[in-house]
């Protein structure tokens, strides 16, 4: 289980140029496979660098074509920069056209299905507006009713508080004075 972790730590130390952590070092001292990995990782740099020239020599020395660079470079400089990048693909374009057409059709139908008001409907609208205007009188009555019940509750609460204060005065033989009555009471 620790072998994988140890090897990762060895690799990481190799890449970061830092020392291998103590844990990995202790494990590698006991584990032969991890020791071999440490040796392999440490030697890889010099081995691969050393073999690189021979490896490159095996690659074919095919000639380059500098004439093509010039022709292409000249062509590139005279060409408009974005012309070749904008390509209208037929399938997405057709889908886009269909979507736009469908949206336009839906909008057209929805707008068309809202007919203008007739004279009868206009009269009905006016009548409903009048009923709304007449509402405030009823509204005031409802508010007054609500306020009266609230006032009753407030009086009951005030009496309860006063009786509680009197009881405490009598029981504890103290005097409680109200400095300033709250506005609500």
């Amino acid at each position, binding site marked *: 289980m620790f072998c994988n972790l140890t090897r990762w730590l060895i690799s990481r130390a190799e890449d970061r140029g830092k020392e291998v952590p103590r844990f990995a070092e202790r494990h590698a001292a006991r584990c032969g496979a991890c020791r071999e990995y440490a040796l392999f990782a440490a030697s890889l*740099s010099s081995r691969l660098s050393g073999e*690189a020239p021979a490896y490159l020599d095996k690659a074919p020395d095919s000639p380059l074509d500098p004439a093509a660079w010039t022709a292409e470079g000249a062509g590139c400089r005279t060409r408009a920069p974005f012309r070749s990048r904008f390509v209208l693909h037929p399938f997405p374009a057709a889908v886009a056209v269909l979507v736009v057409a469908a949206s336009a059709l839906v909008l057209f139908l929805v707008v068309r299905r809202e007919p203008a008001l007739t004279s009868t409907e206009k009269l009905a609208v006016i009548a409903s507006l009048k009923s709304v205007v007449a509402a405030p009188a009823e509204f005031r009555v409802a508010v007054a009713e609500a306020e009266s019940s609230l006032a009753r509750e407030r009086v009951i609460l005030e009496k309860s508080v006063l009786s509680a204060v009197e009881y405490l005065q009598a029981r504890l033989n103290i005097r409680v004075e109200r400095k300033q009555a709250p506005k609500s009471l």
Partner: protein
Amino acid sequence: MADLLPIEQKTDEELAREARAGSRRSFEELALRYKRRLFVYFRPRLGSDQDAEDLVQETFLKLYRNIHNYDPALRFSTWLYTSANRLAISSYRRKKTAAGRLGPEVADDSTDLAVRAAAGEMRSTGLWDAARTLGGNQYRVLWLRYGEGLTIEEIAASISKSRLAVRLLLHRARTNLMKRVGPAPGRAAVTVAVRETPPG
């Protein structure tokens, strides 16, 4: 000062700066230096030598067209391999579309290598030949790290992956490579190998 040097002694970055200023000769020198490196970089993922050569040619063509975009603050090899990777990806996609099947580069590569090995064509049993059989990404990071000497950050920028992904690929490449070629020679030094890890 750099202008007085023979062109062969100039660094890649000096040549790239000159090519950016319009020197075709400097660009040709860069192409000479990198054409084989690009070939071995591309080859394992392509079906044939001819495909790899075509892609090398195409890469230099693209670089020549875009040399004015080269940032002298960057290493030339990082810039080159970044462009090469993008081009390679496009090429692989085109190839997949043309072939009408998935993953042709891996299949072609393994088949091709197996056939060549069986025919005795691959005479060398070196590490790089073993590395070629690892698969696209692992071979690529190994080449960029040890063949080109790029840092982890430069490799990550070149192949458009995170640094962690690059380290993970390198770790897998080392593990798989060791399975293929066996442990390193010189086991006497095993006990000190852990301590003597050279800085990357």
